[in-house]
């Protein structure tokens, strides 16, 4: 990206990194879909700090979180602890953000990332007063069973 960040370029980078990460880490393909966002029970959050701070959010239902973390660890969904599920979603968000940051930083821009945070709560929402623009895409796993919401919020 040259000069000020480019919204479209940023979306492309994050989308590619997200689908690549889930492919390598979960062994499944995530496909963009037009369906409404599933309930968000767990959100992984990081903030990309630089010229334009950006909140990065991956939100999933608790069922999807269990399924995804099971795929990432090989542990059966029924045997996963809540702590490991939260940690898994946080780490997934962390990896996607870290990879994207490395690509963005390959150019002159210099961004830093906060450590990941987790928000838990059945059907929670995240509202930013100063929100200016953003990008939100829902995905479904290729078997059609589980959804994931990916969001970039420019604050």
């Amino acid at each position, binding site marked *: 990206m040259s000069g000020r960040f480019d919204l479209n370029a940023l979306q492309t980078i994050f989308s590619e990194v997200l689908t*690549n*990460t889930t492919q*390598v*880490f979960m062994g499944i393909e995530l496909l963009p879909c037009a369906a409404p966002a599933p309930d968000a029970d767990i959100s992984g959050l990081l903030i990309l700090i630089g010229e334009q701070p950006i909140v990065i959010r991956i939100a999933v239902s608790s069922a999807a979180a269990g399924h995804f*973390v099971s795929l*990432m*660890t*090989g*542990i059966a969904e029924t045997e996963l602890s809540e*702590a*490991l599920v939260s*940690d*898994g979603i*946080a*780490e997934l968000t*962390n*990896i996607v*953000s*870290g*990879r994207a*940051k*490395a690509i963005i*930083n*390959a150019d002159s821009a210099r961004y830093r990332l906060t*450590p990941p945070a987790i928000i838990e709560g059945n059907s929670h929402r995240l509202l930013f007063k100063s929100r200016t623009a953003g990008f939100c895409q829902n995905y479904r796993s290729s078997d059609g069973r589980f959804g994931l919401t990916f969001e970039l919020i420019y604050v």
Partner: protein
Amino acid sequence: MNEKKILAVDDSAMIRKIISGAAAVLGYGLLEAGNGQEALVIAERQPGAIALVLLDINMPVMSGLEFLRAFRANPDNDTIPVAIVSTESESSSVFAAIKLGAQAYILKPFSIEEMERKIVELIGGPEL
């Protein structure tokens, strides 16, 4: 049984869990630390047990690079390879890790096959 162990240093319990599976397949035990400081304590208490350190960079309390500096300051650890396992992939981070004595760099996300391959390349594979 005096089995050799892999020390997984990562603040993510999930990453440590993934590494534990790879270690088991290859016939290694696992020691776990959630940050650099915990890892240093383990390294001091179990001299001779550690065959390989798999090290995250960004961790609370003590980062991977700080751990590496302290770990390499002890000559007893000279022969223990360290592989960085991180999303941190800017050249500055990679070079800092190499200069501090890391032998390999595994980018997250990694496939389980890639993790197993790297471990075998660094310390050998399962006894058949």
